[in-house]
């Protein structure tokens, strides 16, 4: 190694002292430590703080952490198994409507209502409104705490005690009377509480007010039978039914009960076919009219004349005013049939005119209905309000005679014909208290508001018919700070008991102890062991007077306005219910609006639109824009779009009430009444007229309706109304023909399929492929078109059961509605002749074809066939090519065009893309109604009827656990089947020889058909042809001849 030394400086070379010194201190400098360690934020801490705050700021600013709301039970409540539903019998109460129901409660949330089969009134039937009412529980507009109006706004009252103090102050030293204004109340315990409360305040009274008033009927019954009540009707006992404008299958009195009875009389026994004969005289085509065998139309003001003419024809000593000869002939025909079936006939009238109802009572007397089809032994209590009572109340309010008005249920500021007068009168009242679930039109005018619980949160009872009780029990703890109406009254009348205790005591006493009470609560109904039937003595004194009053009734010369209730909405009590708003009207198939209904002739005269001309009809029906007209009635104006509906009287313009809900300040509507009602239709209640004693649902229009230059889009789910003679889709025949040739349809089918050896071997011979065994269960459904009245209960039941999305008007307009089950409605007959129109209702759902055309076209097998014959959807697998929907001959598949369920995006992503209503349905509160057994479908996925596969699975598991075969009609029922008030739907295992579905198919061979059978798609849903008790089938007129030629 070299010893060479390298040096940089001479100093280093010589290693001098000076160099040593300087190299040692080369970088020497003292550290500046002064103040660093004793500062408030030392340097290291500063870095810590910096790091923390940066991280925290970044975290807070950059990403929203999703909040997950899963709260496990720390202690499992007794009797509750997560994932297993509990069922509680309770009662749907809305105004005077009472329906016994069973609430399905999953994990503490009621999610579905079924009819209570123990009720002898409904026998398990429901209506669309009942089915939808569970959603009202989760309505976002519900009041969340008591409120007080401070002159500008409603302020929250922090506690009930504070509220009670306020009320006590307000009720003290009143100058006027205390008046309790409610709808019809059928509850015996509530009545008791009311009586106790009224007793506290001398001079106070209880006024019952029904917007859909039956005063005419009540007063007529008082005049002729001496009873101010309504009897039970028995449509099932009637061989001949004549309805003078009563929509008893849709909206009149007790449609669920009547529909069931009616369907009983329409059931066909193929061995001995006979059905009732149903005449309908009306101005607008109602659901009931749509089911009628023979239908005649007249002006609304002619209702009385028609009744008189009928009475005259039946031998009554009255003279009827002149009527149109065709109408007259119809009345004669009806009278003839009625007389031939004395004691087995029934006439009902939807009129609210006392005189008309007196005449109808006389008619029923003449045909022996009293005591046979009309039962006075069991009066019904649904409606008790008398119109003049409320009118005098308004006068009292106006005159300052009322010191305090307590409103419960009633909403006259919206649905009273002279709402303005009521509103101004209300202002003169010192103390106004409302018990309500929302700040509706009347409640927002009151000073004190106490939130009322939903019926699913309440204790209570109801007495729909005298002696027939239905009980309410809470199915969920109150969602909000609500207190029952009865509790408030008890409190304010100084009682210390709660309503719950009172209720419990009342029923324990009545039923002989707690055991009886608990059993009653479990059953939900308390009914007499046997029903009785009797008539009432008829007093004809008032008939002559009524007759002359009718003769002198003012008749319209121009157009007349007929107000009616729509099956889904009624008088609008559940107007903020998206399920109901999206449920198409059974007749017009329109959603989300009310509109004028006019006859084809009106359209032809006014717009030269001739719907009988296919070219024009085509153009008309494919565009949703409808002309708007303005009508005037006594200085009031109403402009609405027009729908042309066949079967409408030529001189009548119809409009539905129950729409146009709005707060005084329109911008408050979404918060006060609800988001769904915003912009939905217009209020037609101001056009109800008062005839001096009762309100009437018609009015004379001044002059001719004025056509405005604007158009308005009406969202219909079905635009083409004629089935074009396609007997492959719809089969109907007359009773006469059916009797003559019961196997005509079967013969036709065999003829059509003769190349395949007829019906029997079509399944095997109709294909090139070999057959495979299908052992085990094979699900099948049968829909009896003779029983289906088209009410739509099944459609809403399907919505509720299967989490079917609500899409809102804008989307329905684009034909994006999501209904899994729809009711196709077809008209036939001569458009120029309103009386000739026949209507068919055909529930259409996935037919679960065994040779399904949708299945083979899916590129990813997302839709496939189960071993039990179900056509099933694997949503997770679906990529959304929509090929299946195109290839579905029944067009029952529904595609998620947007994120309707909020399943796959943040709400912000949905805004502006889906409607506000969809947003409302996706609110955390509304989502509580979702059925946890059914997936909510995400955007881009196809969906459709599953035959309620979750119910099938549950039923099978139950049977398996109990180690037994499936019980037919018990273990598994689809939601639509269960909801149906007429049992039009039969569902079960078609491989089981003993099942009802097999038997139905065997015993109804003459009426059985499969829609589009010749396609060899092999549907598992069959239909039973509609049999009309009439002379001719309009739908196939002209087509039969064509076929004969071919």
């Amino acid at each position, binding site marked *: 190694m070299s010893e060479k030394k390298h040096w940089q400086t001479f100093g280093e070379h010589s290693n001098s002292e000076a160099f040593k010194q300087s190299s040692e201190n080369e970088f020497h400098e003292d550290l500046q430590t002064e103040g660093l360690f004793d500062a408030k934020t030392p340097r290291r801490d500063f870095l810590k703080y910096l790091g923390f705050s940066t991280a925290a700021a970044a975290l807070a600013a950059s990403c929203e952490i999703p909040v997950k709301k899963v709260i496990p039970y720390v202690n499992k409540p007794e009797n509750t198994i997560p994932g297993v539903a509990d069922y509680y019998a309770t009662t749907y109460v809305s105004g005077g409507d009472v329906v016994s129901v069973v609430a399905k409660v999953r994990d503490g949330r009621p999610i579905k209502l079924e009819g209570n089969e123990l009720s002898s009134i409904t026998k398990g039937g429901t209506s669309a409104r009942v089915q939808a009412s569970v959603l009202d529980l989760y309505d976002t507009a519900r009041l969340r705490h008591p409120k007080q109006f401070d002159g500008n706004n409603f302020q929250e009252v922090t506690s009930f005690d504070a509220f009670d103090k306020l009320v006590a102050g307000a009720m003290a030293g009143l100058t006027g009377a205390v008046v309790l204004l409610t709808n019809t109340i059928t509850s015996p315990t509530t009545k008791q509480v009311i009586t106790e409360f009224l007793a506290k305040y001398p001079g106070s009274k209880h006024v019952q007010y029904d917007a859909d008033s039956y005063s005419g009927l009540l007063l007529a019954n008082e005049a002729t039978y001496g009873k101010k009540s309504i009897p039970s009707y028995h449509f099932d006992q009637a061989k001949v039914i004549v309805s003078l404008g009563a929509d008893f299958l849709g909206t009149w009195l007790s449609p669920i009960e009547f529909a069931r009875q009616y369907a009983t009389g329409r059931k066909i026994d193929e061995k001995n076919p006979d059905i009732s004969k149903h005449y309908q005289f009306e101005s607008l085509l109602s659901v009931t009219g749509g089911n009628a065998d023979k239908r005649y139309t007249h002006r609304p003001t002619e209702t009385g004349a028609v009744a008189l003419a009928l009475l005259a024809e039946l031998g009554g000593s009255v003279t009827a005013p002149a009527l149109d000869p065709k109408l007259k002939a119809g009345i004669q025909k009806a009278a003839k049939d009625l007389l031939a079936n004395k004691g087995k006939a029934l006439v009902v009238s939807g009129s609210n005119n006392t005189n008309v109802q007196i005449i109808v009572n006389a008619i029923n007397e003449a045909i022996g209905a009293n005591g046979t089809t009309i039962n006075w032994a069991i009066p019904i209590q649904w409606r008790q309000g008398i119109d003049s009572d409320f009118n005098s109340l308004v006068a009292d309010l106006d005159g300052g005679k009322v010191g305090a008005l307590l409103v419960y249920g009633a909403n006259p500021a919206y649905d009273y014909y002279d709402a303005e007068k009521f509103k101004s009168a209300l202002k003169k009242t010192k103390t106004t208290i409302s018990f309500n679930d929302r700040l509706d039109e009347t409640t927002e005018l009151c000073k004190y508001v106490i939130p009322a619980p939903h019926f699913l949160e309440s204790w209570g009872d109801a007495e729909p018919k005298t002696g027939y009780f239905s009980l309410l029990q809470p199915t969920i703890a109150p969602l909000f700070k609500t207190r029952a109406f009865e509790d408030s009254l008890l409190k304010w009348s100084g009682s210390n008991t709660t309503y719950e205790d009172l209720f419990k005591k009342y029923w324990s006493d009545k039923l002989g102890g707690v055991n009886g009470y608990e059993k009653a609560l479990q059953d939900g109904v308390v009914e007499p062991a046997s029903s009785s039937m009797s008539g009432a003595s008829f007093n004809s004194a008032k008939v002559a007077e009524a007759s002359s009053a009718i003769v002198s009734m003012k008749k319209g010369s121009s157009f007349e306005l007929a107000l009616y209730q729509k099956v889904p909405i009624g008088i609008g009590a559940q107007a903020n219910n998206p399920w109901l708003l999206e449920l198409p009207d059974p007749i017009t198939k329109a959603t989300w609006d009310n509109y004028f209904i006019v006859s084809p002739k009106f359209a032809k005269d006014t717009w030269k639109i001739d719907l009988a001309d*296919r*070219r024009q009809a*085509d*153009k008309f*029906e*494919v*565009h949703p824009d409808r002309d708007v007209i303005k009508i005037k009635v006594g200085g009031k104006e109403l402009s609405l779009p027009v729908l042309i509906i066949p079967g409408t009287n030529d001189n009548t313009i119809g409009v539905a009430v129950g729409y146009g809900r709005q707060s005084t300040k329109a911008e408050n509507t979404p918060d006060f009444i609800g988001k769904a009602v915003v912009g939905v239709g217009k209020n037609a209640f101001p056009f109800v007229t008062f005839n001096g004693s009762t309100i009437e649902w018609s009015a004379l229009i001044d002059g001719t309706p004025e056509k405005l230059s604007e158009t308005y889009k009406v969202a219909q789910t*079905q*635009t*083409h*109304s*004629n*089935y074009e003679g*396609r007997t*492959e*889709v719809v089969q109907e025949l007359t009773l006469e023909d059916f009797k003559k040739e019961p196997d005509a349809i079967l013969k036709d089918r065999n003829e059509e399929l003769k190349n395949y050896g007829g019906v029997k071997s079509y399944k095997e011979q109709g294909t090139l492929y070999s057959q495979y065994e299908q052992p085990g269960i094979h699900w099948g459904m049968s829909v009896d078109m003779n029983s289906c009245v088209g009410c739509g209960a099944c459609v809403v039941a399907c919505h509720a059961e299967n989490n079917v999305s609500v899409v809102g008007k804008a*989307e329905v307009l*684009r*034909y*994006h509605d999501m209904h899994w089950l*729809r009711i*196709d*409605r077809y008209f036939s007959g001569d458009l120029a002749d309103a009386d000739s129109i026949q209507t068919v209702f055909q529930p*259409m759902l996935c037919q679960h074809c065994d040779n399904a*055309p949708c299945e*083979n*076209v*899916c*590129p*990813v*097998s997302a839709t496939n066939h189960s071993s039990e014959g179900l056509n099933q959807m694997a949503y997770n*697998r*679906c*990529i*959304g*090519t*929509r*090929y299946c*929907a*195109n*290839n579905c*001959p*029944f*067009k029952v*598949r*529904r*595609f*998620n*065009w*947007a*994120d309707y369920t909020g399943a796959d995006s943040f709400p912000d*992503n949905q805004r502006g*893309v889906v409607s506000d209503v969809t947003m409302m349905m996706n609110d955390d509160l509304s989502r509580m109604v979702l059925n946890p057994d059914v997936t909510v479908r995400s*955007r*881009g*996925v*196809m969906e459709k009827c599953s035959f309620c596969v979750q119910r099938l699975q549950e039923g099978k598991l139950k049977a398996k656990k109990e180690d037994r075969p499936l019980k037919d009609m018990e273990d598994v029922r689809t939601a639509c089947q269960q909801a149906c008030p007429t049992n039009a739907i039969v569902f079960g295992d078609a491989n089981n020889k003993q099942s009802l579905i097999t038997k139905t198919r065997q015993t109804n061979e003459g009426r059985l058909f499969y829609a*589009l059978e010749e*396609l060899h*798609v092999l549907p598992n849903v069959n239909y039973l042809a509609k049999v009309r008790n009439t002379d001719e089938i309009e739908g196939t007129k002209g087509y039969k001849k064509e076929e004969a030629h071919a």
Partner: protein
Amino acid sequence: MALLKYESQVRPPLVDGTKDYHQVTEDIVRPIEMKAGRLWWIGFLIAVGLLCFGIYSIYRDVTYGIGQWNLNKTIGWGWDITNFVWWVGIGHAGTLISAILLLFRQGWRTGVNRAAEAMTIFAVMCAGQFPIWHMGRVWMAFFVMPYPNTRGPLWSNFNSPLLWDVFAISTYFTVSLLFWYSGLLPDLATVRDRAKLKWRKLFYGVASFGWSGSTKHWQRHEALSLVLAGLSTPLVLSVHTIVSFDFATSVVPGWHTTIFPPYFVAGAVFSGFAMVQSLLIITRKVLHLEEYITLEHIDVMNKIIVLTGSIVGVAYLTELFIAWYGQNKFEGWAFMQNRVNLFSPLGWSYYIMMGCNVISPQIFWFRKMRRNLTVTFFMSVIVNIGMWFERFVIIVTSIYRDYLPSSWSTYYTPTIWEIGFYLGTFGLFFTCYFLFSKFFPVIALAEIKHILKKSGENYKETMGEAEHETVEEFAHEMEHAH
């Protein structure tokens, strides 16, 4: 005995003018080596603009759902699948020219095949967008691929015509792309060899895969062309046949028709040639290639247009006849009411289809019209409008009113995003085409040179005298030439 004539007396020359090989190279490669002109930039930017609008339209569709389009519960397919079939159809001309005409030794194809093949590839790229983006859950589109996966027994459904489409279109695209690119290799090498700029050398050097022009290369190239032509030929027939199965195998009246496969193929060739006409009439003008894409080419293609147009017309009439003769109520309705009835809501579309596809092309029975560029260009656009409406008529007028009158649809008009998607594919197509015409030889250089030996003025000049000589004289001359 005089020599046999190389050049046909009846057929006009395939290349006009006196050109030598160098001149051909100059003519065709010049546009690539020049700076892009103003027209090119304007066109290119418009195309890119449309493409961006298309991308935004798709963004909306994917983010918010298919509800951005006006399809509905009755009409599940509308503009989307109409456009798909239309674009696929357009692609057909390219394959027909490159494959079938190659096998049939049609010399004239050389002038147009490169551009037509490029058009095929771009059209198929456009077509492919529609089945992809029309899916409700496009992010799950890979479910259609049958590959071993972890999703258990789930596998694609081989019964579904849509799956057949996936295979048909992807095969078609792959083969077309290979065919086109292998044909490009010698030409790219020519461009490379002439390149002076560095990037150009690099780009074309890589792109030409080291082509040296050796006999071995040429031999393999010819063999490959033949093999690919053989593969493509059945594809010309199969692709549109399979696309037609989407409809023909369904139960929808108006779709369920056995005539669809041949009728779709004829229609595809028809629209494809119309598109080739539209493009080449502009291209030859802008790039001054009139002498390579001659009136003769235009004429020949117009003959194909009138032939296929008439085949399509016969198919339309046959369909109508069968709809009546078959006495199927629903099919009868689909044809007589939904289509033939001019006053039905969408009846007008049937008449646009008939007018554009069947009646107007008959003008090409006249030679004068076949050789008129304005008429040809106008007609090529008309034919493609007609063919678009043919698909619209088939798809929409069948399903909007089928079996159940209750479900008959409201009037269908597209939303701006539906139109945007379509325009976007135009953007894609023309963006690609503009890039192609700028950076690739739009005419098959090598192949043109190949036919130059036996056609054109140049040939006549040099060979004209020789043709008059006897064989002996010629042979003698040749012997002493070197």
